[in-house]
Protein backbone atom coordinates (compact mmCIF):
# COMPACT_ATOMS: atom_id res chain seq x y z
CA UNK A 1 0.00 0.00 0.00
CA UNK A 2 1.30 3.45 -0.88
CA UNK A 3 2.29 5.70 1.95
CA UNK A 4 -0.02 8.63 2.69
CA UNK A 5 2.94 11.00 2.39
CA UNK A 6 6.52 10.97 1.19
CA UNK A 7 9.49 12.87 2.49
CA UNK A 8 11.79 14.57 0.10
CA UNK A 9 14.93 16.51 0.76
CA UNK A 10 15.24 19.48 -1.54
CA UNK A 11 17.32 22.59 -1.75
CA UNK A 12 14.70 24.34 0.34
CA UNK A 13 14.79 21.77 3.10
CA UNK A 14 12.41 18.92 3.82
CA UNK A 15 9.22 18.65 1.79
CA UNK A 16 6.33 16.35 2.60
CA UNK A 17 4.50 15.35 -0.52
CA UNK A 18 0.96 14.16 0.11
CA UNK A 19 -0.50 11.17 -1.68
CA UNK A 20 -3.61 12.29 -3.60
CA UNK A 21 -5.13 8.82 -3.20
CA UNK A 22 -4.99 8.94 0.57
CA UNK A 23 -7.76 10.05 2.90
CA UNK A 24 -6.96 13.09 4.96
CA UNK A 25 -7.32 11.28 8.29
CA UNK A 26 -4.82 8.66 7.09
CA UNK A 27 -2.40 11.42 6.20
CA UNK A 28 -2.83 13.08 9.56
CA UNK A 29 -2.27 9.80 11.43
CA UNK A 30 0.79 9.06 9.31
CA UNK A 31 2.27 12.51 9.93
CA UNK A 32 1.64 12.15 13.65
CA UNK A 33 3.43 8.81 13.62
CA UNK A 34 6.46 10.10 11.72
CA UNK A 35 6.79 13.17 13.90
CA UNK A 36 6.63 11.05 17.04
CA UNK A 37 9.12 8.54 15.70
CA UNK A 38 11.66 11.13 14.63
CA UNK A 39 10.91 13.83 17.20
CA UNK A 40 14.48 14.93 17.64
CA UNK A 41 15.15 15.05 13.93
CA UNK A 42 12.23 17.32 13.07
CA UNK A 43 12.03 19.45 16.17
CA UNK A 44 13.23 22.99 15.63
CA UNK A 45 13.15 22.57 11.88
CA UNK A 46 10.76 23.48 9.12
CA UNK A 47 8.77 21.28 6.79
CA UNK A 48 7.06 22.30 3.57
CA UNK A 49 3.86 20.49 2.75
CA UNK A 50 3.07 19.88 -0.90
CA UNK A 51 -0.64 19.07 -1.21
CA UNK A 52 -0.04 17.38 -4.57
CA UNK A 53 -3.73 17.35 -5.40
CA UNK A 54 -5.10 16.55 -1.95
CA UNK A 55 -7.90 19.03 -1.26
CA UNK A 56 -6.90 21.02 1.79
CA UNK A 57 -9.35 23.51 3.16
CA UNK A 58 -8.64 26.03 5.88
CA UNK A 59 -9.57 23.58 8.66
CA UNK A 60 -7.37 20.82 7.33
CA UNK A 61 -4.43 23.19 7.05
CA UNK A 62 -4.99 24.30 10.62
CA UNK A 63 -5.02 20.69 11.82
CA UNK A 64 -1.67 20.01 10.17
CA UNK A 65 -0.30 23.33 11.42
CA UNK A 66 -1.36 22.51 15.00
CA UNK A 67 0.16 19.04 14.73
CA UNK A 68 3.47 20.44 13.59
CA UNK A 69 3.44 23.13 16.24
CA UNK A 70 2.99 20.49 18.94
CA UNK A 71 6.25 18.95 17.81
CA UNK A 72 8.00 22.26 17.45
CA UNK A 73 8.16 22.10 13.68
CA UNK A 74 7.61 25.11 11.48
CA UNK A 75 4.93 24.61 8.88
CA UNK A 76 5.02 25.92 5.35
CA UNK A 77 2.60 25.29 2.54
CA UNK A 78 3.98 24.84 -0.96
CA UNK A 79 2.79 27.14 -3.66
CA UNK A 80 1.51 29.84 -1.37
CA UNK A 81 -1.90 29.71 0.14
CA UNK A 82 -3.98 28.38 -2.71
CA UNK A 83 -6.67 26.77 -0.71
CA UNK A 84 -9.18 24.42 -2.19
CA UNK A 85 -12.37 26.43 -1.90
CA UNK A 86 -15.19 24.80 0.03
CA UNK A 87 -18.50 24.94 -1.67
CA UNK A 88 -20.83 26.70 0.67
CA UNK A 89 -24.40 25.50 0.57
CA UNK A 90 -27.35 27.76 1.03
CA UNK A 91 -27.89 27.75 4.75
CA UNK A 92 -30.60 30.21 5.54
CA UNK A 93 -32.76 28.72 8.26
CA UNK A 94 -36.20 28.39 6.75
CA UNK A 95 -38.20 28.50 9.91
CA UNK A 96 -35.61 29.90 12.28
CA UNK A 97 -35.35 26.44 13.82
CA UNK A 98 -33.33 24.23 11.53
CA UNK A 99 -31.88 24.12 8.09
CA UNK A 100 -32.28 20.72 6.47
CA UNK A 101 -29.81 19.48 3.91
CA UNK A 102 -31.46 16.62 2.07
CA UNK A 103 -28.33 14.83 1.03
CA UNK A 104 -24.97 13.60 2.18
CA UNK A 105 -22.56 16.46 2.64
CA UNK A 106 -19.70 15.76 0.27
CA UNK A 107 -16.04 16.53 0.48
CA UNK A 108 -15.51 20.18 -0.20
CA UNK A 109 -18.99 21.21 0.87
CA UNK A 110 -19.57 23.42 3.84
CA UNK A 111 -22.56 24.57 5.88
CA UNK A 112 -22.30 27.70 7.96
CA UNK A 113 -25.45 28.47 9.91
CA UNK A 114 -26.84 30.50 12.77
CA UNK A 115 -29.43 27.86 13.49
CA UNK A 116 -29.75 24.11 13.93
CA UNK A 117 -28.52 21.96 11.08
CA UNK A 118 -30.01 18.67 9.93
CA UNK A 119 -28.21 16.49 7.41
CA UNK A 120 -30.17 13.67 5.76
CA UNK A 121 -27.07 11.64 5.07
CA UNK A 122 -23.42 11.46 6.06
CA UNK A 123 -20.92 14.23 6.61
CA UNK A 124 -18.07 13.01 4.45
CA UNK A 125 -14.44 13.68 5.05
CA UNK A 126 -13.62 17.06 3.67
CA UNK A 127 -17.06 18.42 4.50
CA UNK A 128 -17.65 20.91 7.24
CA UNK A 129 -20.49 22.20 9.42
CA UNK A 130 -20.25 25.29 11.57
CA UNK A 131 -23.03 26.51 13.82
CA UNK A 132 -23.60 27.97 17.24
CA UNK A 133 -26.65 25.76 17.65
CA UNK A 134 -26.99 21.98 17.22
CA UNK A 135 -26.37 19.46 14.51
CA UNK A 136 -28.48 16.39 13.72
CA UNK A 137 -27.07 13.88 11.26
CA UNK A 138 -28.96 10.93 9.78
CA UNK A 139 -25.69 9.22 9.11
CA UNK A 140 -22.03 9.18 10.05
CA UNK A 141 -19.70 12.08 10.76
CA UNK A 142 -16.40 11.74 8.96
CA UNK A 143 -15.71 15.40 8.40
CA UNK A 144 -15.60 18.46 10.58
CA UNK A 145 -18.48 19.52 12.82
CA UNK A 146 -18.41 22.51 15.13
CA UNK A 147 -21.58 22.99 17.17
CA UNK A 148 -22.80 24.97 20.14
CA UNK A 149 -24.48 22.52 22.47
CA UNK A 150 -24.95 19.00 21.10
CA UNK A 151 -24.45 16.80 18.07
CA UNK A 152 -26.64 13.80 17.27
CA UNK A 153 -25.41 11.18 14.83
CA UNK A 154 -25.31 7.48 13.95
CA UNK A 155 -21.55 7.37 13.89
CA UNK A 156 -18.72 9.51 15.18
CA UNK A 157 -15.54 9.23 13.11
CA UNK A 158 -14.88 12.93 12.83
CA UNK A 159 -11.83 14.51 11.43
CA UNK A 160 -12.49 17.17 14.00
CA UNK A 161 -15.46 17.80 16.27
CA UNK A 162 -15.95 20.62 18.71
CA UNK A 163 -18.82 21.64 20.93
CA UNK A 164 -18.70 25.17 22.23
CA UNK A 165 -14.96 25.23 21.67
CA UNK A 166 -14.23 21.96 23.45
CA UNK A 167 -12.61 19.40 21.22
CA UNK A 168 -13.55 15.74 20.91
CA UNK A 169 -10.39 13.83 21.56
CA UNK A 170 -11.23 10.14 21.34
CA UNK A 171 -9.28 7.88 19.07
CA UNK A 172 -10.76 6.95 15.74
CA UNK A 173 -13.45 4.34 16.33
CA UNK A 174 -15.03 2.32 13.52
CA UNK A 175 -18.35 2.03 15.31
CA UNK A 176 -21.65 3.00 13.82
CA UNK A 177 -24.95 2.74 15.60
CA UNK A 178 -28.37 1.69 14.52
CA UNK A 179 -29.95 4.26 16.79
CA UNK A 180 -28.78 7.85 17.27
CA UNK A 181 -26.22 8.82 19.86
CA UNK A 182 -25.72 12.31 21.28
CA UNK A 183 -22.42 14.06 21.86
CA UNK A 184 -22.48 16.60 24.66
CA UNK A 185 -20.10 18.37 26.96
CA UNK A 186 -19.95 16.80 30.43
CA UNK A 187 -17.34 18.12 32.87
CA UNK A 188 -15.53 19.89 30.04
CA UNK A 189 -15.17 16.73 27.98
CA UNK A 190 -17.22 15.60 25.04
CA UNK A 191 -19.11 12.44 25.97
CA UNK A 192 -21.20 10.26 23.65
CA UNK A 193 -24.35 8.69 25.04
CA UNK A 194 -27.37 6.84 23.78
CA UNK A 195 -30.08 9.35 23.02
CA UNK A 196 -32.79 9.21 25.65
CA UNK A 197 -30.92 6.66 27.73
CA UNK A 198 -33.01 5.44 30.60
CA UNK A 199 -31.81 4.63 34.07
CA UNK A 200 -31.53 0.91 34.84
CA UNK A 201 -32.15 -1.09 38.00
CA UNK A 202 -28.48 -1.81 38.58
CA UNK A 203 -27.42 -0.28 41.85
CA UNK A 204 -24.71 2.32 41.29
Amino acid at each position, binding site marked *: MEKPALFRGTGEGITMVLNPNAQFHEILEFLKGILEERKTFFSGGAVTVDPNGVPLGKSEINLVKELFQNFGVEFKLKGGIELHKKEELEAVPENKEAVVIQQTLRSGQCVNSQGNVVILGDVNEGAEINTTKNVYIFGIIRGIVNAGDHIVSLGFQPLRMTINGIQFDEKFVEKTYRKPRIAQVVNEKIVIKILGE*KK*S*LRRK
Partner: protein
Amino acid sequence: MGRAIVITSGKGGVGKTTITANLGASLAKLKKKVVLVDMDIGLRNLDVVMGLENKIVYNIIDVAEGRCKIVQALIRDKHLNNSLFLLPASQIHTKDDIDIDKICEIIRAIKGSFDYVLVDSPAGIEHGFDSAITAADEALVVVTPDVSSIRDADRVIGLLENRGIDGTSLIINRHNPTFAKRKKILDAESIVDVLGIDLIGIIPEDPQVMEFTNKGEILVLHKNNPTAKTFQNTAKRIEGEDIPFLDLKKKKSFFNLFKKK
Protein backbone atom coordinates in the same frame (compact mmCIF):
# COMPACT_ATOMS: atom_id res chain seq x y z
CA MET B 1 -35.13 3.22 52.89
CA GLY B 2 -35.69 0.17 50.70
CA ARG B 3 -36.27 -0.18 46.99
CA ALA B 4 -39.80 -0.75 45.68
CA ILE B 5 -39.67 -2.59 42.36
CA VAL B 6 -42.73 -3.59 40.33
CA ILE B 7 -42.46 -6.68 38.13
CA THR B 8 -44.70 -6.21 35.14
CA SER B 9 -45.08 -7.22 31.51
CA GLY B 10 -48.37 -6.28 29.91
CA LYS B 11 -48.72 -9.76 28.50
CA GLY B 12 -49.98 -12.51 30.79
CA GLY B 13 -48.24 -15.79 31.46
CA VAL B 14 -44.68 -14.67 30.73
CA GLY B 15 -43.41 -15.50 34.23
CA LYS B 16 -43.86 -12.44 36.44
CA THR B 17 -44.95 -14.41 39.49
CA THR B 18 -42.24 -17.05 39.12
CA ILE B 19 -39.64 -14.35 38.67
CA THR B 20 -40.95 -12.35 41.63
CA ALA B 21 -40.64 -15.38 43.88
CA ASN B 22 -37.23 -16.54 42.66
CA LEU B 23 -35.74 -13.06 42.47
CA GLY B 24 -37.06 -12.25 45.92
CA ALA B 25 -35.59 -15.46 47.30
CA SER B 26 -32.26 -14.75 45.57
CA LEU B 27 -32.11 -11.27 47.12
CA ALA B 28 -32.97 -12.75 50.50
CA LYS B 29 -30.11 -15.20 50.03
CA LEU B 30 -27.87 -12.17 49.54
CA LYS B 31 -28.82 -11.20 53.09
CA LYS B 32 -31.49 -8.66 52.14
CA LYS B 33 -34.86 -8.30 53.86
CA VAL B 34 -37.50 -8.78 51.18
CA VAL B 35 -41.30 -8.51 51.00
CA LEU B 36 -43.15 -9.91 47.99
CA VAL B 37 -46.49 -8.20 47.35
CA ASP B 38 -49.13 -9.92 45.22
CA MET B 39 -51.15 -7.28 43.37
CA ASP B 40 -53.10 -9.71 41.20
CA ILE B 41 -56.27 -9.09 43.17
CA GLY B 42 -58.88 -11.76 42.48
CA LEU B 43 -56.42 -14.09 40.76
CA ARG B 44 -53.74 -14.53 43.37
CA ASN B 45 -50.84 -16.86 42.53
CA LEU B 46 -47.78 -15.76 44.47
CA ASP B 47 -48.96 -17.67 47.53
CA VAL B 48 -49.26 -20.89 45.51
CA VAL B 49 -45.79 -20.52 44.00
CA MET B 50 -44.36 -20.08 47.51
CA GLY B 51 -46.46 -22.88 48.98
CA LEU B 52 -48.02 -20.55 51.55
CA GLU B 53 -51.70 -20.76 50.59
CA ASN B 54 -52.59 -22.51 53.84
CA LYS B 55 -51.00 -19.82 55.92
CA ILE B 56 -53.05 -16.86 54.68
CA VAL B 57 -55.09 -15.11 57.33
CA TYR B 58 -55.17 -11.52 56.13
CA ASN B 59 -54.46 -10.02 52.72
CA ILE B 60 -53.60 -6.62 51.28
CA ILE B 61 -57.23 -5.58 50.86
CA ASP B 62 -57.79 -6.27 54.57
CA VAL B 63 -54.91 -3.90 55.31
CA ALA B 64 -56.22 -1.28 52.88
CA GLU B 65 -59.68 -1.41 54.39
CA GLY B 66 -58.38 -1.17 57.93
CA ARG B 67 -59.24 -4.62 59.21
CA CYS B 68 -55.67 -5.37 60.20
CA LYS B 69 -52.16 -3.95 60.33
CA ILE B 70 -49.54 -4.68 57.67
CA VAL B 71 -47.46 -6.85 60.01
CA GLN B 72 -50.48 -9.06 60.71
CA ALA B 73 -50.91 -9.76 57.01
CA LEU B 74 -47.24 -10.58 56.31
CA ILE B 75 -46.45 -14.28 56.02
CA ARG B 76 -42.95 -15.66 56.59
CA ASP B 77 -41.42 -17.83 53.88
CA LYS B 78 -41.21 -21.53 54.75
CA HIS B 79 -37.42 -21.60 54.51
CA LEU B 80 -36.03 -18.05 54.71
CA ASN B 81 -38.31 -17.15 57.59
CA ASN B 82 -36.41 -14.09 58.72
CA SER B 83 -35.69 -12.46 55.40
CA LEU B 84 -38.47 -13.32 52.94
CA PHE B 85 -42.13 -12.38 53.44
CA LEU B 86 -45.35 -12.48 51.44
CA LEU B 87 -48.17 -9.93 51.46
CA PRO B 88 -50.88 -11.88 49.70
CA ALA B 89 -53.64 -10.64 47.42
CA SER B 90 -57.32 -11.15 48.06
CA GLN B 91 -59.00 -13.94 46.14
CA ILE B 92 -62.57 -12.74 46.67
CA HIS B 93 -62.24 -9.14 45.57
CA THR B 94 -61.56 -7.78 42.09
CA LYS B 95 -59.28 -5.06 40.81
CA ASP B 96 -62.14 -2.58 40.98
CA ASP B 97 -61.98 -2.87 44.77
CA ILE B 98 -58.47 -1.44 44.91
CA ASP B 99 -57.96 1.96 46.52
CA ILE B 100 -54.76 3.15 44.88
CA ASP B 101 -53.90 5.70 47.56
CA LYS B 102 -54.19 3.11 50.31
CA ILE B 103 -51.97 0.69 48.37
CA CYS B 104 -49.44 3.47 47.88
CA GLU B 105 -49.36 4.09 51.63
CA ILE B 106 -48.88 0.37 52.34
CA ILE B 107 -45.98 -0.03 49.91
CA ARG B 108 -44.31 3.12 51.25
CA ALA B 109 -44.65 1.84 54.79
CA ILE B 110 -43.09 -1.52 53.92
CA LYS B 111 -40.27 0.25 52.08
CA GLY B 112 -39.35 1.97 55.32
CA SER B 113 -38.59 -1.31 57.10
CA PHE B 114 -37.29 -3.61 54.40
CA ASP B 115 -34.50 -3.62 51.79
CA TYR B 116 -36.70 -4.69 48.90
CA VAL B 117 -40.41 -4.65 48.14
CA LEU B 118 -41.10 -6.64 44.99
CA VAL B 119 -44.59 -6.03 43.65
CA ASP B 120 -46.01 -8.77 41.41
CA SER B 121 -48.17 -6.88 38.92
CA PRO B 122 -51.16 -8.43 37.18
CA ALA B 123 -51.28 -8.67 33.39
CA GLY B 124 -52.88 -5.80 31.50
CA ILE B 125 -52.57 -2.04 31.64
CA GLU B 126 -55.76 -1.18 33.48
CA HIS B 127 -56.55 -0.39 37.11
CA GLY B 128 -54.70 -3.45 38.41
CA PHE B 129 -51.51 -2.37 36.65
CA ASP B 130 -51.94 1.22 37.86
CA SER B 131 -52.27 0.07 41.45
CA ALA B 132 -49.22 -2.20 41.16
CA ILE B 133 -46.96 0.57 39.91
CA THR B 134 -48.12 3.13 42.42
CA ALA B 135 -45.37 3.77 44.97
CA ALA B 136 -42.88 1.76 42.90
CA ASP B 137 -39.63 3.60 42.18
CA GLU B 138 -38.31 1.11 39.68
CA ALA B 139 -39.68 -1.47 37.26
CA LEU B 140 -38.62 -4.83 35.89
CA VAL B 141 -40.27 -5.62 32.59
CA VAL B 142 -40.55 -9.32 31.76
CA VAL B 143 -40.73 -10.61 28.19
CA THR B 144 -40.60 -13.95 26.45
CA PRO B 145 -38.88 -14.19 23.05
CA ASP B 146 -42.02 -13.72 20.97
CA VAL B 147 -43.42 -10.75 19.11
CA SER B 148 -46.69 -10.50 21.08
CA SER B 149 -44.87 -10.27 24.38
CA ILE B 150 -42.48 -7.67 23.00
CA ARG B 151 -45.20 -5.49 21.59
CA ASP B 152 -47.01 -5.53 24.93
CA ALA B 153 -43.78 -4.79 26.77
CA ASP B 154 -43.13 -1.85 24.50
CA ARG B 155 -46.55 -0.44 25.38
CA VAL B 156 -45.91 -0.95 29.08
CA ILE B 157 -42.48 0.69 28.94
CA GLY B 158 -44.08 3.70 27.32
CA LEU B 159 -46.66 3.89 30.12
CA LEU B 160 -43.99 3.48 32.80
CA GLU B 161 -42.09 6.41 31.35
CA ASN B 162 -45.02 8.68 32.05
CA ARG B 163 -45.58 7.53 35.60
CA GLY B 164 -42.45 8.69 37.35
CA ILE B 165 -40.69 5.31 37.39
CA ASP B 166 -37.05 6.14 37.90
CA GLY B 167 -35.31 3.04 36.59
CA THR B 168 -36.38 0.30 34.17
CA SER B 169 -34.67 -2.94 33.26
CA LEU B 170 -35.59 -5.96 31.19
CA ILE B 171 -35.71 -9.67 31.93
CA ILE B 172 -36.04 -12.16 29.10
CA ASN B 173 -37.77 -15.30 30.36
CA ARG B 174 -38.10 -18.74 28.79
CA HIS B 175 -35.11 -18.06 26.60
CA ASN B 176 -33.93 -20.84 24.29
CA PRO B 177 -30.56 -20.03 22.75
CA THR B 178 -30.63 -22.97 20.35
CA PHE B 179 -33.97 -21.88 18.92
CA ALA B 180 -32.77 -18.31 18.86
CA LYS B 181 -29.71 -19.30 16.88
CA ARG B 182 -31.93 -21.12 14.37
CA LYS B 183 -34.05 -17.98 14.11
CA LYS B 184 -37.12 -19.82 15.40
CA ILE B 185 -37.49 -17.28 18.18
CA LEU B 186 -36.03 -13.84 18.79
CA ASP B 187 -32.55 -13.60 20.23
CA ALA B 188 -31.68 -11.36 23.16
CA GLU B 189 -29.89 -8.79 21.03
CA SER B 190 -32.90 -8.21 18.77
CA ILE B 191 -35.21 -7.88 21.75
CA VAL B 192 -33.00 -5.31 23.43
CA ASP B 193 -32.62 -3.49 20.13
CA VAL B 194 -36.37 -2.99 19.89
CA LEU B 195 -37.15 -2.22 23.51
CA GLY B 196 -34.10 -0.09 24.17
CA ILE B 197 -33.81 -0.63 27.92
CA ASP B 198 -31.09 -2.21 30.03
CA LEU B 199 -31.11 -6.03 29.99
CA ILE B 200 -30.63 -7.32 33.51
CA GLY B 201 -31.51 -11.00 33.30
CA ILE B 202 -31.96 -13.92 30.91
CA ILE B 203 -33.82 -16.93 32.35
CA PRO B 204 -33.81 -20.10 30.26
CA GLU B 205 -36.75 -22.31 29.39
CA ASP B 206 -36.76 -25.00 32.06
CA PRO B 207 -39.49 -27.60 32.69
CA GLN B 208 -38.35 -27.83 36.31
CA VAL B 209 -39.84 -24.39 36.91
CA MET B 210 -43.39 -25.69 36.55
CA GLU B 211 -42.48 -28.76 38.59
CA PHE B 212 -41.46 -26.58 41.52
CA THR B 213 -44.48 -24.31 41.21
CA ASN B 214 -46.68 -27.36 41.50
CA LYS B 215 -44.81 -28.45 44.60
CA GLY B 216 -45.14 -24.99 46.12
CA GLU B 217 -41.39 -24.63 46.40
CA ILE B 218 -39.17 -21.81 45.13
CA LEU B 219 -36.60 -23.23 42.69
CA VAL B 220 -33.58 -21.19 43.82
CA LEU B 221 -34.00 -22.42 47.39
CA HIS B 222 -33.59 -26.03 46.32
CA LYS B 223 -31.44 -26.17 43.24
CA ASN B 224 -28.21 -24.69 42.03
CA ASN B 225 -28.70 -25.54 38.36
CA PRO B 226 -28.09 -23.09 35.49
CA THR B 227 -31.64 -21.74 35.81
CA ALA B 228 -31.17 -20.99 39.49
CA LYS B 229 -27.85 -19.32 38.68
CA THR B 230 -29.53 -16.97 36.23
CA PHE B 231 -31.95 -15.80 38.95
CA GLN B 232 -29.06 -15.32 41.34
CA ASN B 233 -27.06 -13.39 38.76
CA THR B 234 -30.03 -11.12 38.11
CA ALA B 235 -30.30 -10.41 41.82
CA LYS B 236 -26.59 -9.62 41.96
CA ARG B 237 -26.89 -7.23 39.03
CA ILE B 238 -29.74 -5.45 40.76
CA GLU B 239 -27.39 -5.08 43.69
CA GLY B 240 -24.81 -3.48 41.42
CA GLU B 241 -22.49 -6.36 40.52
CA ASP B 242 -21.44 -6.44 36.88
CA ILE B 243 -21.95 -10.05 35.77
CA PRO B 244 -21.68 -11.00 32.09
CA PHE B 245 -24.51 -13.12 30.74
CA LEU B 246 -24.01 -16.91 30.92
CA ASP B 247 -23.41 -18.74 27.71
CA LEU B 248 -26.45 -20.98 27.93
CA LYS B 249 -25.49 -22.74 24.73
CA LYS B 250 -22.89 -24.97 26.39
CA LYS B 251 -24.03 -28.52 25.83
CA LYS B 252 -23.57 -31.00 28.63
CA SER B 253 -20.66 -33.04 27.37
CA PHE B 254 -18.45 -35.51 29.17
CA PHE B 255 -15.61 -33.00 29.27
CA ASN B 256 -17.79 -30.14 30.52
CA LEU B 257 -18.63 -32.13 33.61
CA PHE B 258 -15.04 -31.72 34.73
CA LYS B 259 -14.77 -28.05 33.84
CA LYS B 260 -14.97 -25.63 36.74
CA LYS B 261 -17.69 -23.02 36.00
